[in-house]
């Protein structure tokens, strides 16, 4: 597309053309109205003066004689100007005045008419038009008084010229303005197009130019920039996640493969093979678990699970999860109990919140120091308390343990995916429990915070109450 073609095809230019047409029509209409009115005004003025003059001359004729009339007419005829006079005798003969010739029949018609004429002192070929009035005087005399219409004609010419000129001006100025405006707008749009093309090519750091005028284009650019920032953040997150997935799925996959190889190389008896294969099934179950947790987090973060939100009592799910884990905790010498005496209604996904709580309790049990495992000087951490209560317009779900806790500096970090503070291969877990709980909290329009339970860790999921 050529530059001019692009310009002409642009919306701004088409709009300019439409406006140009409207303004031209408007200007023309205005001038035509003006011309018509002026013409009418001139005619009115002529009629008025001619009427006055006829009245005056008729009076002279009535008071004096036709001689007196002719004298006055002769006198006036000599004055320079646009006035026409003619007095005819009953025979039709001209006896005074400055008219050389008239269109035929004009003098016979009493009243107003428009006619061509020639003055007495002019050449045969001269011809003008005039507005005349003929009056019948007594005794067969006739009086004609008129005014030349050249003035009106000239006025008409002036106006026609003005119409032409102004139309030309409107068109020229309009086109020039249109080009100017269109080019400006096109330039800004081209900048936007360039940026979007750069972004499409993969450079997500590009941002649309904002001029600072605050017009609609600026507002659009600002909004698009915010959108781009969000997309960039999401892409960054996605990349991080895929890096983490690659790491956390490849590690167990490598272990799995190593086990297979070791079995092939070293296993001799059926028992050896059985043990190796059971180990492989364990590894693949761990992989599946990690994968499920990742999918669950992705789903919670995409907001898909919002479709299944129902109102339920948080106290009830806290008691349910506590009851499910209580025997496991007891086996490790830990007391697990639920403190949720009052109903605390909220709207959400029951299954996901239960799972989040289960993950938190599972962590608490994992990191708690059972009495038996404590060395000298170490205190056992015998109690985990789950709670659900209403706090203003929020519902707080808590899991508080007496374990080693998490240093304040690490608290933000552990909520991220895959972070395990004490990497311990013997302890099962994907490191995703806390991030899943955080994602579930966000899905419910709430947040997950880690607090000091002095001593120990208290995890709080705060979500809006129903």
């Amino acid at each position, binding site marked *: 597309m050529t530059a001019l073609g692009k310009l002409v095809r642009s919306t701004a230019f088409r709009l300019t053309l439409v406006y140009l047409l409207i303004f031209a029509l408007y200007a023309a209409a205005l001038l035509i109205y003006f011309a018509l009115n002026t013409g009418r005004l001139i005619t009115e003025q002529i009629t008025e003066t001619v009427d006055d003059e006829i009245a005056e001359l008729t009076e002279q004729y009535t008071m004096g004689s036709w001689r007196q009339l002719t004298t006055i007419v002769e006198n006036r005829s000599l004055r320079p100007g646009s006035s026409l006079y003619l007095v005819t005798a009953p025979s039709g003969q001209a006896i005074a005045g400055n008219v050389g010739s008239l269109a035929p029949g004009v003098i016979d018609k009493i009243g107003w008419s428009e006619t061509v004429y020639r003055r007495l002192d002019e050449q045969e070929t001269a011809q003008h038009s005039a507005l005349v009035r003929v009056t019948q005087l007594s005794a067969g005399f006739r009086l004609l008084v008129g005014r030349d219409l050249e003035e009106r004609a000239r006025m008409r010419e002036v106006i026609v010229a003005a119409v032409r000129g102004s139309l030309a001006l409107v068109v020229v100025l309009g086109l020039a303005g249109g080009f100017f405006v269109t080019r400006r707008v096109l330039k800004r749009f081209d900048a936007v197009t360039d940026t979007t093309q750069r972004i499409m090519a993969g450079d997500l750091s590009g941002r649309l130019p904002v001029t600072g005028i605050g017009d609609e284009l600026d507002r659009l650019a600002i909004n698009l920039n915010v959108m781009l920032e969000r997309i960039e953040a999401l892409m960054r997150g996605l990349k991080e996640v895929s890096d983490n997935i690659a790491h956390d799925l490849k590690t167990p996959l490598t272990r799995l493969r190593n086990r297979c190889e070791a079995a092939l190389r070293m296993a001799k008896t059926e028992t050896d093979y059985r043990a190796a294969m059971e180990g492989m*099934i364990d590894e693949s179950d761990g992989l599946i678990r990690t994968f499920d947790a990742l*999918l669950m987090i992705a789903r919670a973060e995409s907001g898909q699970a919002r479709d*299944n939100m129902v109102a339920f009592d948080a106290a009830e799910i806290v008691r349910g999860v506590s009851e*499910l884990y209580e025997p496991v905790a007891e086996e490790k010498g830990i007391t697990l109990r639920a403190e949720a005496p009052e109903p605390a209604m909220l709207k959400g996904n029951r*299954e996901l919140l*239960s799972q989040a709580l*289960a*993950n938190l309790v*599972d962590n608490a049990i994992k990191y708690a120091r059972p009495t038996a495992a404590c060395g000298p000087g170490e205190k056992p951490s015998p109690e985990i308390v789950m709670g659900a209560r209403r706090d203003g317009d929020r519902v707080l779900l808590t899991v508080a343990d007496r374990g080693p806790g998490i240093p304040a500096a690490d608290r933000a970090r552990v909520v991220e995916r895959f972070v395990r503070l004490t990497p311990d291969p013997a302890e*099962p877990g994907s490191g995703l429990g806390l991030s899943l709980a955080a994602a579930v909290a966000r899905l419910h329009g709430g947040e997950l915070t880690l607090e000091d339970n002095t001593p120990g860790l208290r995890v709080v999921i705060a979500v809006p109450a129903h």
Partner: protein
Amino acid sequence: MVKSQRALPMIPDNSLDFAFSGVQHTPMRLLIIEDDRDAAEYLVKAFREVGHVADWSADGEDGLAMASDGAYDVLVVDRMLPKRDGLSVISALRAQKLETPVLILSALGQVDDRVKGLRAGGDDYLPKPYSFAELLARIEVLARRRGGRGEETSYRVADLELDRLSHSVRRGTTEIDLQPREFRLLEYLMKHAGQVVTRTMLLENVWDYHFDPQTNVIDVHISRLRSKIDKGFAQPLLHTVRGAGYMIRDGAR
């Protein structure tokens, strides 16, 4: 899903290796509608080894036609199938008033996928990847349900008796005191006496959770229950089935 056996309190003399030894399987006719040839062949072979007859269909249209004559005990239907998807096959069967139990297999394992599957007329939903033991246990429970064994007011296995109306349990002459959840656990196990129930089946049916609790929570609940109903009795009734789950049965028979 097969859980790690390391952490389990294994009791060697009443543990059984499910599927390939020990447990008796009443022969069933199964139809597997699954487009993955390898997966289907593995299932057909594995079912044959435990004494069932399994047919295979590779797409939804063909599967629907085969299932329509009603000759099967249980249908195993994959969700994503060529020509006609699994859920639509099930809806079509149900529209024909065919009540053959259906187990849906799917890579879509989220809670709402499951709900969709059950709403379409499926009787059970197992996300991929699954263990064969889990699939087998669920299919046998489905087939038994079809056999007409419905809700009863009391269950009895050997000298263990559970009364659902009075919420009481006794073994021989001894009254056994159970917590409400332990009662429901025993109730479910006894309802499916002689059948293997897996940990996930227990979690789903007794606790109504469909997520993986990561830890061996069910095993600990079972060992508590076992200590109440089996401890001090000569004949253990609650058995651990290796690689699968648990089963209550009269060991004398």
